[in-house]
């Protein structure tokens, strides 16, 4: 159905703010009214995002639903929003997971009003990050997103929440500060080259940068996104942030915030500096593989379920990065699909852990044992989530992981083999945890009287299990929507600048084609 010029992306981005306004006027006491309004807002938000999926034109790497308004005329910064194959599903994932996590935060009863306001504000900024095509606008959403997340972890978190919140904030801040330096450099290079001031992604992509500076710029961008992914050496903030964040917070943190790192690599870091991508490919692949194996091994020995799932995220996202840097069609689309799968399966795991945390207020594995007897439905949903996370065929994890490793094997066989060990290790730590929590007799008396899922929790789990089976059994609609953008990304990351014109929907002008041929 033709969308005409209905500014769907702006509506999507700023609709939660309407919710914030409504909640702001509700009295603090009637907590339920606040919860339901927040939930209804997030449901409407999800419904608005559905037409994106259907009205998405297949086959073209062009950006769709584009909106461009002058924002800061004196600097040449535009309010430039648009999505393509890569960001379509990330936006859908955002709205879907936010809806579920708001529904899952019924157990929050301290300052519910501020909680819901910061949650909806977080959703606005997240969608903004994914849809922004103007570097300054991207940076604005990228930084502002930290504030609500900082409040979520800091105010409603666990015992060491403050340390985790400040560590999370500063870690990301240091990274993005260097990125700001790189953006400024590109901004002025573009001004020197073309005489016009502009932050647009397309314009800056066409830049010719002198090779001496390119590695430093690449590393500046890469550091900011590597911290967010998190890649191996920069991951220590993740377990703390996840363990201390409230349930809904860690769902969003794992489900979406980590994807911004990989999204950053795909949208900004690699297309801008193809020469540096070749130069650092081995380094980043090695870090990704270390991340995979390291994350899995450390997850094996965790006593706290949430920390275990956090380290498993490090491992899964290592696979995504492996896929990205292997730079062929199968591995990149596998990596992209793995990002969405990880969002769903880890989101599900966190929701589940949150449910038993609400009942028993502890996350240590040894506190539990034999719960399957008392909570059979919960046990089955947990099992589905576990198997989706460790990549059982028929569920979503397998498709992404297999494609990534398959593609990676084509270009870098050794790294793919090392990455494939993750399948064994993920099965090991997840099943071992599952066994210690759900099987064996019930030793702890408190576990005896655990109630099974109530209706609300049941709905959440049913909703999150559906995409698991959908992607597992019929991933074609996802893959075909991603394919053109992934091909464009690979061309860009390999240095063919002419793709940019297709992405803008304009016809490729010969000048750049010729100059590009000369340059290579």
């Amino acid at each position, binding site marked *: 159905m033709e969308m005409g010029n209905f500014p769907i992306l702006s509506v999507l981005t700023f609709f939660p703010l309407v919710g914030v306004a409504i909640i702001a006027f509700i009295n603090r006491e009637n907590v339920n009214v606040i919860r339901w309004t927040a939930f209804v807002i997030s449901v409407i938000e999800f419904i608005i995002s559905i037409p994106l999926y259907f009205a998405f034109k297949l086959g073209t790497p062009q950006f769709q639903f584009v909106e461009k308004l002058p924002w800061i005329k004196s600097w040449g910064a535009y309010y430039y929003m648009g999505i393509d194959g890569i960001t379509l599903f990330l936006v859908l994932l955002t709205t879907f997971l936010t809806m579920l996590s708001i529904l899952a935060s019924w157990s929050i009863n301290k300052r519910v009003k501020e909680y819901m306001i910061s949650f909806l504000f977080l959703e606005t900024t997240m969608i903004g990050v994914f849809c922004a095509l103007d570097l300054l606008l991207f940076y604005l959403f990228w930084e502002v997103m930290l504030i609500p997340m900082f409040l979520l972890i800091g105010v409603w978190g666990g015992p060491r929440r403050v340390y985790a919140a400040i560590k999370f904030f500063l870690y990301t801040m240091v990274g993005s500060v260097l990125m700001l330096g790189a953006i400024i450099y590109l901004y002025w290079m573009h001004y020197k080259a073309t005489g016009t001031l502009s932050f647009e992604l397309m314009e800056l992509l066409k830049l010719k940068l002198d090779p001496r500076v390119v590695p430093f710029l690449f590393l500046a961008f890469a550091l900011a996104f590597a911290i967010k992914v998190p890649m191996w050496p920069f991951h220590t903030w993740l377990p703390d942030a996840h363990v201390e964040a409230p349930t809904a917070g860690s769902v969003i943190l794992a489900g979406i915030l980590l994807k911004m790192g990989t999204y950053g690599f795909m949208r900004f870091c690699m297309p801008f500096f193809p020469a540096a991508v070749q130069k650092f490919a081995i380094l980043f692949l090695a870090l990704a593989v270390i991340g995979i194996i390291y994350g899995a*091994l450390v997850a094996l020995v965790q006593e706290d379920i949430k920390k275990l799932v956090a380290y498993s995220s490090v491992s899964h996202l290592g696979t995504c990065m492996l896929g990205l840097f292997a730079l062929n069609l199968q591995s990149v689309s596998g990596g992209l699909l793995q990002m969405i799968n990880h969002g769903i399966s880890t989101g599900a795991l966190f929701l589940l852990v949150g449910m038993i945390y609400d009942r028993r207020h502890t996350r240590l594995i040894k506190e539990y044992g034999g719960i399957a007897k008392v909570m*059979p439905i919960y046990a089955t949903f947990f099992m589905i989530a576990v198997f989706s996370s460790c990549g059982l065929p028929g569920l979503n994890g397998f498709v992404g992981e297999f494609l990534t490793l398959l593609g990676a094997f*084509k270009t870098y066989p050794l790294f793919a083999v090392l990455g*494939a060990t993750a399948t*064994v290790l993920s099965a090991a730590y997840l099943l071992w945890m599952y*066994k210690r929590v759900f099987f064996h007799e019930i030793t702890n008396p408190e576990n005896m009287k655990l109630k099974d899922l109530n209706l609300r929790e049941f709905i959440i789990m049913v909703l999150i299990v559906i995409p698991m089976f959908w992607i597992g059994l019929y991933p074609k609609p996802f893959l*075909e929507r991603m394919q053109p953008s992934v091909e464009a990304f690979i061309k860009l990351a390999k240095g063919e600048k002419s793709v940019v014109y297709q992405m803008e929907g304009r016809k490729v002008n010969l000048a750049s084609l010729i100059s590009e041929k000369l340059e290579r």
Partner: protein
Amino acid sequence: MLKLILAVILIPLAGAMINGLFCWKTKRKAHLIAVPAIAIPAVISLVLFWKVAHGQRFDGTFYWWISVGNFRIPIGFLLDELSAVMIVTVTFVATWIHIYSIGYMDHETDRGYAKYFCYLNFFVFFMLTLVLANNYLLMFVGWEGVGLCSYLLIGYWYEKASAANAGMKAFITNRVGDFGFMIALFLLYKHLGSLIYHDVFASAHELTLPLATLITLLLFMGATGKSAQIPLYVWLPDAMEGPTPVSSLIHAATMVTAGVYMVARSHVLYNLAPFSMEVVASIGAATAMFAASMALVNNDLKRVLAYSTVSQLGYMFVGVGVGAYAAGVFHLFTHAFFKGLMFLCAGSVMHALHGELDMQKMGGLYNKMKITAITFIIGALAISGVPPLAGFWSKDSILHHAFVSGHKIIWFVGTVTAAMTAFYMFRLIFLTFFGEPRDKHIYEIAHENPPVMTIPLMVLAFFSATVGLLALLPGGGFEGFLNRLFEAAHHGAEHAAHGGHEAGGAAVLILISVLVAFMGIGLAYAMYMKHTPDPKKLTERFRPIYTLLYNRYYVDELYFALFINPTVGISRHVLWKIVDVLIIDGIVNGVARLCSLVGNLIRKIHTGFIPDYAWAILVGIIIVCGLKIIF
């Protein structure tokens, strides 16, 4: 044709879904859904078998699962001789086991009952997908799905710690095997561009020798994981924790044979890599001998059968390894029947004695459980290779091919193992059913099981007796039927002298194998009935060997010591505690603390005393003027 195949696959899935989703409704009546859900596909598969027998083949796709660039994976099905045989065996044996488990699981909780049947149906669904898939990836889906169901069913009584551990162990060991399988798939895709069978087999000749060997060895690594061969067999003995029908269906008849099926299916690749054929054969033989030796001394009824399964699988791999794919599959076919039967008999013994498995406590149960005993003896005879029964035909054919194709040592090992097989089977028979009852209480409570359990025993006993005769059918019998597929592949003729009975050489081989079988039975009879070389004295004399065998060569402990404990230890103490907490977090927190220390230091400059401020300003001026003077 496609509709029939879809029916065969989807009906068990439907049965499983119904039982799974509405388990609190179907409660006691779960079997009314589960059994027909297997029976109908059994009938259809017979029809399909009939069609394939008349030369019809099918290789089509239902829908495109993953298609990214030139990597296109269909949900497609291939029906030819091999898969027809497999679906018949699977569905037929599964039906009778479902009927049997109605009786066996009668004292389970309502929901547990439905859950059991749901898992069983799921298992059959995955097994059929594995067998009928027309590409390696869909086979891999079935492959892992079967592993999942074995995990669920082994861990059915999850209260028992041993069952839960066994389930996890099974799944992870399978996953280790699947890792090798996956790497093989990557290699195949990288060099041949597709994973669909007919594309792969068509362009298989392009593979260089080392590449083909590598792929086939990795595929075989997957097979060892799934079919419990030497390195990755440890999970099968522990898998006995699950209910006995499960052991009989999964760990005897169907799942463990998946490895053999896979090797048989990719015979084109294996023919290209003679070295890996040698590896398969030798590992098969080694496993056979190794497992049989452990079975000699084990006192647990089901563990003995488990080791015998591992040993028989070794045989199948020997068959396949020496190039006689048809013989290997034939042995698989016959083994499904008599091993399934024996497990069910063991199950009924266990059911009757309320879960008692230790053979020392049993004895003289013959007159209390007449039908179980007789069927058990038929099974034992079949497995030992006594002529008219099924085991003889298939095992002899394998040994024959081994000898003919020049693998003399393997033939010799096979024959010795045959003797050992006969010995430990009849040791089991004599210990449980004959001689004087050793435990009074056990003897009283022993009773025959209701017909719902005994009928499947009788049916399977009949088939395990007669199914061997298929080898005598016209056109080369069972193997001839299969060879239509395998011969078509490689028209090499050196195995011309197969099947039937040639001149003197073959007769001698048959004689030896029969002789060996009777020798084993006689020895068992002598030791356990007549106590002439009294087993107790023998164990005293060979104490060290006995303990080594009894403790299963300490393999489990070896694996734990070599792989599991070090990884857990390293990852806890080195990776997590030191690298993550000390080094990386140390650096991060260190920088933070350094900043606040420096901050505290600099803060101390502001002493609040005005002359100090004036002094500092003067120094500032001096520095700034100095800067100006110098530059």
